[in-house]
């Protein structure tokens, strides 16, 4: 247990994630980003020279690339890169036992219910606090089967033969300004390898926690699932609400070899001061399947378009996306489906809810080139507007060349009808309860795609968001 002084220092708020502990960091790269910052990070991690070089090249790309404000939100201009700290850690090595995790960090994750979830239904957990993992453990039997579940530093140092060939290959450094930023200063994240034929029954989970103000979290995840193997990975995240902007910019690369299956589930609940600018992409080989199940409830601005490159015949890609934008939030989300082999199939189902002055944007890109045969895409995107000031925009870009493909696209914008609310209120529900239930109903078919434990949490989060939205 943390001592009482520590407990008192916690700012308690009704929002589950809105508390923080006083800072005491052994390693702090300071404000701003230069080559020195990179040397600092590389030195602490004791990294191989090629990684240091990789980072420095990325820094150049980052500096050279303009902000994508010609198509994206001008709010990006409010990020002051000089006012951000790029690396903070207590100097801890991830432990395999919660007892060895520093008290305040342990208390944080306990309040978020992580150890309990681990006991109940997870095959492995990694808990990252600011720049580094504080806890990392995977069930013994998985280790015996050859499953690797470590952070990025350890992955590249201990298993370069596994991870280096794919590192930065699915998402090249220069993919966009923020993938370049991540490539320069990445720390933490999960590196996972599942050997051929191993089907990991229970999910592996990572939990990302930002504790410090004026800080950027740049985790890097690479998941390689070998032939015929399967894994479900879940990530959750929270941060306390600070006055100043916080930056979270991750790069997540997935590689599904022949016949492999990867399911990647996200429940994003950053506080409303976090810029969440994330690049996620998977590469699916022959007959492999990659599913992104993505739920964005928190953050100030999220820009995230999970993608799948279907490189092998009969590969399948799917994005299931729920976004909830409340006052002061902009959820700019979507999907990218790149068909690069015959008979590949992709499915996108995106639902967004805009509440108050919240804004949601859907951007979808589906690419099927002319020389391919028998590709399929289904895209559905539905937006629900709660208040008159709520806003939604849809930018689908479907380029299908050739006539041997089947594509289908549906989009809708709707409001909860007043007659529906009247009906529900006649049964005794308050306006807020009626609205919550209606919104949960709108996303219900997608929420069902999340594991039970998460769907309950999602419902609760949606209820909380809807509470103040009416009357």
């Amino acid at each position, binding site marked *: 247990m943390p001592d009482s002084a520590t407990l008192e220092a916690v700012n308690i708020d009704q929002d589950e994630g809105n508390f923080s502990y006083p800072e005491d960091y052994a390693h702090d790269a300071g404000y701003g980003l230069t080559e020195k910052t990179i040397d600092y990070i590389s030195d602490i991690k004791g990294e191989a020279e090629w990684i240091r070089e990789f980072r420095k090249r990325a820094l150049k790309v980052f500096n050279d690339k303009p902000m994508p404000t010609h198509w994206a939100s001008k709010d990006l201009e409010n990020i002051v890169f000089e006012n951000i700290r790029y690396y903070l850690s207590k100097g801890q090595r991830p432990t395999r036992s919660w007892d060895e995790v520093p008290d305040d960090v342990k208390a944080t994750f306990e309040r978020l219910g992580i150890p309990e979830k681990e006991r109940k239904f997870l095959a492995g957990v990694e808990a990252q606090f600011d720049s580094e993992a504080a806890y990392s453990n995977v069930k013994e039997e998985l280790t015996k089967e050859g499953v690797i579940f470590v952070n990025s530093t350890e992955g590249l140092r201990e298993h370069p033969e596994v991870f280096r060939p794919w590192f930065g290959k699915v998402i090249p450094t220069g993919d966009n300004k923020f993938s370049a930023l991540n490539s320069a200063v990445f720390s933490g994240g999960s590196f996972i390898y599942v050997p051929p034929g191993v089907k990991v029954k229970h999910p592996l989970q990572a939990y990302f926690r930002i504790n410090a103000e004026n800080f950027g979290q740049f985790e890097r995840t690479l998941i390689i699932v070998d032939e015929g193997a399967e894994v479900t990975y879940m990530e959750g995240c929270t941060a306390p609400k600070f006055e100043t902007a916080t930056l979270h910019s991750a790069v997540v690369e997935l590689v599904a070899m022949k016949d492999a299956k990867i399911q990647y589930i996200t429940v994003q609940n950053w506080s409303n001061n976090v810029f969440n600018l994330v690049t996620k992409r998977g590469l699916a080989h022959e007959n492999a399947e990659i599913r992104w199940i993505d739920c964005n409830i928190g953050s100030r601005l999220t820009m995230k378009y999970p993608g799948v490159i279907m490189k092998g015949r009969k590969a399948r890609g799917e994005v299931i996306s729920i976004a909830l934008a409340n006052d002061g939030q902009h959820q700019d989300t979507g999907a990218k489906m790149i068909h690069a082999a015959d008979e590949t199939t992709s499915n996108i189902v995106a639902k967004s809810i805009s509440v108050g002055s919240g804004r949601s944007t859907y951007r979808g890109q589906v690419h099927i080139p002319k020389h391919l045969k028998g590709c399929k895409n289904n895209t559905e995107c539905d937006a629900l507007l709660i208040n008159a000031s709520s806003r939604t925009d849809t930018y689908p870009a479907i380029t299908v060349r050739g006539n041997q493909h089947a594509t289908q696209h549906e989009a809708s914008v709707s409001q909860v009808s*007043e007659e*529906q609310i009247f009906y*529900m209120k006649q*049964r*005794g*529900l308050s306006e807020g*309860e009626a609205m919550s*239930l209606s919104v*949960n109903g709108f*996303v219900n078919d997608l929420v069902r795609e999340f594991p039970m434990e998460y769907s309950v949490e999602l419902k609760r989060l949606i209820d909380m968001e809807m509470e103040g939205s009416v009357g």
Partner: protein
Amino acid sequence: MSQSLRIENLHASVDGHEILKGLTLEVPKGQVHAIMGPNGSGKSTLSKVIAGHEDYTVTEGSVFLDDINLLDLEIDERSRAGFFLAFQYPHEIPGVSNANFIRAARQARLPKGQEIDAVAFYREMYAKMDELGMDRKFTARSVNEGFSGGEKKRNEILQMMMLEPKYAILDETDSGLDIDALKIVAQGVNAMRSPERGFLVITHYQRLLDYIVPDVVHVLHDGRIIHTGGKELAYELEEKGYDWIINEPVAA
């Protein structure tokens, strides 16, 4: 104060157009009253005004549920005070299962912090669905979505049975029901008849009143009750239509 649903000199309009023009009616606890009347006479308007629908403005009159002035309350407060409306056209609620909806309505009646006993809730709901001849699959289906007309009406009665109101208005619950369904629904309503509860049954057809036998029958025309009688009035109306009443001078 008397134990009744009491509507006094009720005037209500929509978009400045008066639809209820001084309607007076009292349903004492323990009784079933029927309202009959031609299309467009204001029957559904009456039920929605009592429920508190915001399209309608009450310009005069009062509605009391026992000693509670309903017109002072919000829509949901009226419901929790014991008023139930079985809608003529029940709305669909996409994605919300019937069971969750009814459970939420029950939960809304509990004091804060008290949780519904889920096992007991389902047991009770299944028993009531059996009474109404409703298949179990209706618990998981979205409220009224894709239901046939008759299924929607049964679902209204199920909700009424689960919420146990003090007073209920049934707005043309019989329309869209075949004779077997009608009997089942009437059985459900009859099982709920009690000295502690009052019903106002709106219908076009005397047929329903063969199965839910009313204590009193009212005729509504042009926003007013123009005639009141016993259950035999329904047969008379069925036989002779409304014109003979409409054309008779309104008793003061």
